[in-house]
């Protein structure tokens, strides 16, 4: 049998909530067990060396694994959570090292940085105003440190697991994604290439003017604040938890969690944008 090529993975966490890791555990096919033990695609697997949520080692023993993997270089660095750069990095430390330094140190020797979730991709909830910890995205942090390792964003609060698995598989099969495979927000077009509104099963309600006037009504949810017209996501196509449901099918407006500027640009969640805000959003989306 030919040898399996193993891509080492280091997963680190900054200003986040572990929701991204928990969401990944919901991956239906491949299951988490497949990701950990089996080939992800023929001849290739990932080797999850460091991930605080699941790893056996604790404390220094865990940090030794991290250092050993780093010294061999060329790994995939997965970052979950934003980077708080305020107060000299004191808002988030791991092993007494500011998280901002840890990201820089590990990103330098990585083949690619994959940002799982909206926090590491764009800042997300912890970067929402007034952002008293000065949280920034991993991309902005690496730019500020002149670190040129390529990055790939996999936003969502959290991302549905297949968005991450597909992004990771793309990297493992084809290497670092090319510019034309990415959109302006650094996401794979294949995974994030469509507005929720354009693929929404309630698009017919929008077209015929059947609008929900308050939460819980049937019809298009634009009047109760749906941000589907401004949000690129596979939610309407793939659904959640093996397609069982998704927010709009659950009568809840989309809150735009996959977009740069979430949450500030998308709030109030339950208010419709005025013309000016809507035009501004479409300019952003081009």
């Amino acid at each position: 049998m030919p040898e399996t090529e193993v891509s080492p993975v280091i997963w680190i966490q900054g200003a986040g909530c572990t929701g991204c890791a928990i969401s990944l555990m919901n991956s239906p096919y491949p299951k988490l067990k497949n990701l950990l033990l089996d080939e992800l695609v023929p001849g290739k697997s990932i080797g999850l060396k460091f991930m605080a949520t699941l790893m056996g080692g604790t404390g220094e023993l865990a940090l030794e694994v991290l250092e050993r993997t780093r010294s061999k270089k060329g790994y995939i660095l997965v970052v979950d959570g934003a980077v708080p750069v305020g107060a000299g990095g004191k808002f988030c430390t791991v092993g007494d090292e500011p998280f901002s330094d840890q990201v820089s140190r590990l990103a330098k020797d990585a083949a690619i940085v994959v940002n799982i979730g909206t926090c590491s991709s764009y800042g997300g909830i912890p970067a929402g105003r007034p952002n008293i910890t000065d949280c920034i995205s991993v991309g902005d942090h690496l730019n500020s440190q002149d670190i040129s390792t390529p990055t790939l964003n996999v936003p969502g609060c959290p991302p549905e697991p297949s968005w991450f698995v597909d992004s990771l598989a793309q990297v493992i099969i084809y290497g670092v994604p090319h510019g034309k495979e990415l959109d302006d927000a650094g996401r794979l077009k294949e995974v994030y290439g469509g507005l929720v509104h354009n693929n929404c099963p309630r698009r017919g309600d929008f077209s015929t003017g059947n609008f929900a006037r308050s939460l819980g009504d049937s019809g298009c949810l634009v009047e109760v604040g749906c941000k589907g017209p401004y949000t690129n996501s596979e939610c309407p196509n793939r659904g959640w938890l093996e397609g069982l449901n998704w927010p709009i099918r659950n009568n809840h407006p989309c809150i735009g969690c996959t977009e740069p500027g979430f949450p500030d640009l998308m709030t109030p969640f339950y208010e419709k944008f005025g013309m000016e805000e809507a035009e501004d959003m479409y300019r952003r989306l081009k």
Partner: protein
Amino acid sequence: MKRISIDPVTRIEGHLKIELSIEGGKIQSARSSGTLFRGLEATLSGRDPRDAGRITQRVCGVCPAAHAVASALALDDAFQIKKEIPKNGRLIRNLILGSNFIHSDLLHFYHLSSLDYLNPGDLAGLKSADPDLQDLETYLGTSDGAPFVPEYSGDYRLGGEVSVDIARDYLAALEIRKKAHQMVAIFGGKMPHNMGTVAGGVTKPPDIDSITKFRSRLEEIKEFVEQRYLPGVLEIADVYGDYFEIGQGVPDFLAYGGFYQDDFSKSHQKTEKGILGGALSLGSEEVEELQLEKITEKVTHSWYTEAGNGHPTKSKSQPDPDKEEAYSWVKAPRYYERPHEVGPAARMLINFRRGNELVRKELKVALNKTGLSVKQLPSVMGRHMARAVECLSIVKMMEEWINELRPGEPSLTQYELPKSGSGLGLTSAPRGALGHWLRVKDGRIENYQLVVPTTWNASPRDGKGTPGPIEEALIGTRVEEPDSPIEAARIVRSFDPCMACAVH
């Protein structure tokens, strides 16, 4: 005196550092330090109050449904609609929260804790009939074993047969906890961070399709909890019986109620069914009604300005990262000026003493099997056992609630947004007593304070120098190899710390 620092404490949620001073083979002092601060209370300030239901879930990706319930209750209260939540709305909130408990409990026992007792090396050479376990054995035999190894060295006593059971169920539980998340999604749209629980009830009324999809999964989960999870805990407890005497902690316990069926007017203390609240001292048989004004937070040893001291309705969280005497981003909540343990052990103890019939019945079965007394629940093994017993109790409650749903009837009440008001939302969360305090002014959030289960359990010392529950549970523990302090890790993990919650 040897000083050691365990940082990061892995296999928990988030960022925790534990510092220990060891002398004569025993822990003399301990410091618990939360090392991530996000400032989400400040983020909530100035926003539309309804947005709290979505934003507070982002406090924690492991138990977001609990924050959704606490914020919905606080908003119901502030909007003066708490007596008008339709029955379907209350039941579905409970079903979503219950499903979150199941996922969280299974995750904690198998994926976060079991490696403290299970040595993957013990699986080598044991031929298992389970195909998933065969894959694990092959993987361990042909790779460096990451991420499961290396582990601390220590007394891994399970032996081959029990190890095979636990490892098999580690893999099986990955799938079972996913089914619990599917149950959340059936009524909540997605998970983590559901889009169902809102002020006024829930967005989606029940229908036949959602009820049957939910119910069939619940029955599958019940079988696993009854036949694998609870017996698995008892199997480990049988081998590690001494851990019913290790990691006992503070003698005071606190719980809010949970899974409300009534109008919530007094429901932090009593519910018709569900989980009951109260305060209890270990030496007492009598559960006291909670006096909520006696809850205060202290920031003497936390990186906040003095504005962080006091009752949650009056305090503000302003960071002071250079504060000299501070060592944690976690505040120190106290009830009647004393630290209190919260969580499944506290809840089961309080519900046992208050006469919650379902809990008493399930707990007695487990206590009889192990020959233990209810007073031994606050301990490393006791906490694992209490969590499993609670999980089974909640599954059985959920079976009743799903039958009480009424398709065709409303699940949500409509309301006018008031310009001002204040609200309180208290609930049981998987890790203990969760409280949201909210004040609205000019139609916007003026102040939002959260006192979260792990804030209680992982708290640092208070102004009087009294250690928090995890700190206290560590003190006096024997550590065989200070460079491999597995005893301390077992104690800390038995509390199931959630640091993103504790600090937020």
